[in-house]
């Protein structure tokens, strides 16, 4: 069997259910693949891992991948299981925030580590500076890994994923109607998340291309299985969680939310989505993530072959 190492963007959770299902259900095996899934975490830059040769393919968000590309690490998107973005800003309603304009003069928690780009371009579109509090400015905090800043009211809003952190806020006892959320998707600043990326040079190797075609095919099979059997998929994820930190309830709910994001994709990258992402990033304000239109940042070679 051919070996494939897959680097995830975050810890083992239902966000990556498709891959775990494919592994568990033998879809990879059926394609004669021996897949190792490497969980990520707050300290791991998947782009760096793949650059160092630690993985063949990685799950990454497109802004980070394009930024890496401009830094001289030629990553190529070979498949895009996530159709829409799950990122949003979650605020306390009682602070009086009702519309994006109200964000000025607030304290906002933002994820950095390459995940800050969509936020930055959103703010620049709103004409809000991120340099500090003021009439037309916000105070930005580098949010840690959890939702404490919101619960402790150290921030008025924090970044959340529809499938994860939002529910942690709810689990902490907060009623949904105490909160107001701004989905990046709705604000028109959504960027593509969780795509599969490989190094460009590897695509010159037919054997590697063939391996990836089989990999993507099996992975998408896994995703569709997971969408249809969310509870079973969540169980599979739990079985693979070596840290023993995930709970069944949370993973099942995450799976059902994730399914909404993957539902629209057969695995092939939509060129329109790509263009929208690039446009959002190019509008990124004072310190743009990418300065020029990237070239060759994606290919349909794999998906074309895999999905037929």
């Amino acid at each position, binding site marked *: 069997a051919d070996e494939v190492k897959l680097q995830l963007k975050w810890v083992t959770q239902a966000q990556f259910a498709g891959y775990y299902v494919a592994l568990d259900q033998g879809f990879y095996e059926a394609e004669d693949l021996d897949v190792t899934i490497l969980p990520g975490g*707050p*300290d791991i*830059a998947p*782009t*760096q891992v793949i*650059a*160092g040769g630690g993985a063949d393919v990685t799950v990454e968000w497109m802004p*980070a991948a394009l*930024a*890496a590309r401009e*830094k*001289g*690490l030629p990553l190529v998107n070979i498949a895009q299981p996530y159709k829409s973005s799950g990122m949003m800003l979650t605020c306390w309603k009682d602070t009086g925030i009702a519309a994006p304009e109200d964000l000025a003069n607030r304290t906002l928690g933002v994820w*950095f*580590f*390459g*995940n*800050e780009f969509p936020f930055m371009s959103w703010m620049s579109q709103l004409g809000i500076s*991120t340099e500090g509090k003021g009439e037309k400015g916000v*105070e*930005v*905090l*580098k*949010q*840690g*890994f*959890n939702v*404490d*800043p919101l619960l*402790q009211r*150290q921030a008025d809003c924090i970044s959340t994923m529809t499938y994860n952190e939002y529910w942690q806020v709810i689990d902490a006892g907060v009623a949904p109607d105490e909160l107001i959320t701004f989905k990046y998707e709705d604000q028109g600043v959504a960027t593509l998340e969780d795509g599969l990326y490989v190094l460009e040079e590897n695509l010159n190797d037919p054997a590697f291309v063939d391996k990836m075609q089989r990999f993507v095919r099996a992975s998408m099979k896994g995703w569709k299985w997971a969408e249809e059997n969310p509870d079973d998929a969540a169980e599979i994820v739990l079985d693979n969680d070596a840290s023993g930190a995930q709970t069944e309830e949370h993973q099942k709910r995450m799976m059902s939310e994730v399914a909404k994001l993957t539902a629209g994709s057969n695995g092939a990258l939509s060129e329109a989505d790509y263009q929208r992402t690039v446009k959002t990033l190019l509008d990124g304000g004072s310190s743009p*993530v990418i300065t020029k239109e990237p070239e060759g940042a994606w290919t349909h070679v794999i998906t074309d072959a895999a999905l037929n």
Partner: protein
Amino acid sequence: MVMVSMALLIWCAGWWLNGRLANSSASNTSAVKLLVPAIFGVTLLIVWELLVRGLEVSLVILPAPSVIAARFATSLPVLWQDFQQTILKGALSGYIIGCGAALLMAIAVDRSDFLRRGLLPVGNFVAALPIVGTAPILVMWFGFDWQSKAAVVVVMVFFPVLVNTVAGLRETSAMQRDLMQTYAASYWQSFFKLRLPAALPFIFNGLKISTTLALVGAIVAEFFGSPTVGMGFRISTSVGQLALDMVWAEILVAALAGSAFYGMMALIEKTLTFWHPSQRG
């Protein structure tokens, strides 16, 4: 391959030169004492540069020193801001509070045998709490700004200084203490005239270890939440953006600041404990 073998050659040459210098008659002059580590460092940098170029190591894995230097030179304003936030506000204030509290506590512990027996084991236990666990908690308690970083530093430096000071205060020889007994000296007299001076070498041991701990603590704490400025913030966001040259520029700042901080303490130590055998050379 040429560069790799050159690296090897330069490495050997550096050692040879240092060997000559260190064993020469001038080896006790302060010029040579500075020159030898400098040569070692320069050799290391050249070898690094050559290896990175020779082996074509990717920029996103390990940038060459020249690239780092260029980034350092062009980012001075940002680096200075980060330095102020992390070192001057976070590390320094935490260091002063932590060391001060530890010294006071050490005196209390030293005065009471009961406290010493009870507090030191508990203290050792608390000192073993890993920073990756305490930092998020302290960020939650003290907020995102430098106060939480100072708190992390306080926790990190408190016990090394406490333990060293307590050990130092007990370091006097039996005869030295007996002498004070025959004078019927009061506690504070024998404290200031005997125990404190005798403890100084130990106290400085703790203070010196703590300089590097303070620095590392303040930087690492920023990984767990920070405003959008600071060395730890910059390092973690730069890694995310694969701007490894910036990461190393910040590390360079940390190393410079840390060495200066350590050197300063060593200098104060030298002037205050000139009498100790280890300082007499």
